[in-house]
């Protein structure tokens, strides 16, 4: 493969992830307004103007045609290419990867990646299942995670309490994040007595929905406005659907599965990310793992290679995954606190790593001068995206 140019992050922007329906004291905002706000915040952070942006990639899932165009139309139509990316819950990171590639291959110097979503309410609707499977009730996302969770419990001895601890940790971190939907801690008892959704998944094992936007401006090193604390992309990997994924719980269409062939999409993308970056799990100072459902964070940590299968619950119990632990995971509260605006989520994960590496996270800043961080997102289909940043 040809040699890739180094790509830096010039600036980032978020909106608060919240409910923007105009009810119960919430502001009323359209999805594209959230995208626009995130872009304006990123421009300010990068000390750049809109006219500097040469291309834009926008991740959304449930917005209308031309979602990126709608947001950008409010700022300026300069004739640059805008490409809308739908890769389910990993759309924002998939947009980031396209922006990264277009600079790394020297097609452009300054590119915007962003994502936003104004979420439909209730269970996330998916048309990825054939009609007959929807009629049979197979399209319940927590149920698909539940089946993967039952296997995980069977194979590792993990318990419901272990999963509840993920929620407790992440909600504790989220209480330090002014951009999270939920900024209030929860107790183990509250999680374990919350309503059952799909056994063994309870309400507080599931991330809440939210509306929001997230934007990242990437550039070649020579286009940066500031040379202090430069953060660059060490790896950007996307893998989609691989044959032999166990139950397909994190996103396939569920029609069946192989008994003989075992492949795991997260393990695959981890191998590729370690190879591309030249780093290994021992080099990583801060992690954004994929906690759309609480148990998922545990097996994510294991599949990414930070510990052996079944060991993540012990790390969590010992406090190793806390902000002041030896492997801080989801320091911004994860999906569990931020909430989950599908198109924005995976970009927000990358933003958290960026800000941690720059030492800008105030009360939730990881100590010890973190230099390398990893963000992992999953998406139905399935998709697995890993981004490794370094300072």
């Amino acid at each position, binding site marked *: 493969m040809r040699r890739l140019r180094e790509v830096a992050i010039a600036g980032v922007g978020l909106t608060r992830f919240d409910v923007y329906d105009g009810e119960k004291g919430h502001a009323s905002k359209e999805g594209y307004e959230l995208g626009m706000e995130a872009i304006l915040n990123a421009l300010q952070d990068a000390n750049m103007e809109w006219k500097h942006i040469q291309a834009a990639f926008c991740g959304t899932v449930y917005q209308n045609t031309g979602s990126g165009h709608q947001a950008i139309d409010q700022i300026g139509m300069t004739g640059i290419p805008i490409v809308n990316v739908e890769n389910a819950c990993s759309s924002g990171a998939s947009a980031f990867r396209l922006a990264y590639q277009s600079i790394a291959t020297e097609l452009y110097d300054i590119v915007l990646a962003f994502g936003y979503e104004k979420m439909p309410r*209730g*269970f*996330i*609707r998916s048309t990825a299942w*054939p*009609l*007959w*499977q*929807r*009629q*049979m*009730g*197979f*399209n*319940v996302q927590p*149920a698909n995670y*539940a*089946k*993967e969770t*039952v*296997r995980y419990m*069977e194979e590792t001895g993990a318990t419901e309490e272990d999963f509840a601890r993920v929620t407790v940790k992440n909600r504790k971190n989220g209480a330090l994040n002014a951009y999270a939907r939920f900024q209030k801690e929860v107790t183990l008892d509250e999680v374990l007595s919350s*309503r*059952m*959704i*799909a*056994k*063994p*998944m309870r309400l507080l094992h599931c991330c809440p929905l939210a509306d929001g936007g997230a934007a990242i401006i990437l550039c070649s090193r020579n286009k940066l406005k500031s040379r202090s604390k430069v953060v660059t992309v060490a790896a950007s990997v996307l893998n989609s659907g691989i*044959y*032999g994924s166990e*139950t397909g719980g994190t996103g396939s269409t*569920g*029609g*069946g*599965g*192989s*008994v*003989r*062939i075992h492949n795991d999409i997260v393990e695959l993308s981890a191998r590729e990310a370690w190879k591309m970056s030249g780093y290994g799990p021992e080099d990583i100072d801060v992690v954004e793992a994929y906690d759309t459902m609480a148990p998922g964070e545990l097996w994510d940590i294991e599949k990414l290679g930070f510990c052996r299968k079944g060991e993540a619950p012990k790390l969590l119990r010992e406090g190793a995954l806390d902000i002041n632990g030896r492997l801080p995971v989801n320091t911004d509260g994860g999906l569990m606190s931020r909430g989950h605006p599908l198109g924005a989520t995976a970009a927000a994960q990358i933003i958290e790593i960026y800000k941690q590496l720059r030492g800008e996270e105030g009360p939730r800043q990881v100590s010890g001068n973190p230099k390398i961080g990893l963000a992992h997102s999953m998406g139905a289909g399935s998709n697995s995206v890993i981004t490794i940043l370094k300072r």
Partner: protein
Amino acid sequence: MSGSPKQIPVKEGLWIVPSSPDGKPQLIGSRCHDCHEVFFPKKAYGICNHCQSKKLEEIKLSRDGKIYSFTVVMQKPPEFYRGPVPYAEGFVELPEGVRVQTLLTDCNLDDLSVGMNVELVIEKLHEDEQGNEIVTFKFRPATSNKGRSGG
């Protein structure tokens, strides 16, 4: 009155009902001649999505399997499902080497477990607007389990 309501499969081609009166239904799958992977439902376009071979044969799958994983859904799905809530669904592993996603029926929802022996049945899923009975495949605890569950 026309008697019993008309029965319509949730989708054609998922299972076969033998013509003999004591015949039992079987799910229809595909097997790849080249890599020997087995699929359910059968591959509609005749391509093995493991090795891309086009040499697929239609096979009838065993009626008996074991629960590989399952869940009990406590909340009504977003659309189209019109059966009872809560309901159980899961993956059943068949001896041919394929896991089938299926509803689990005729069981105490609290008694389901990984490894439980189950058997295929064709049952009502729901009634449509015209009063027709929409039927589908499900698995239920095998008769061989029932002696043990009480103890």
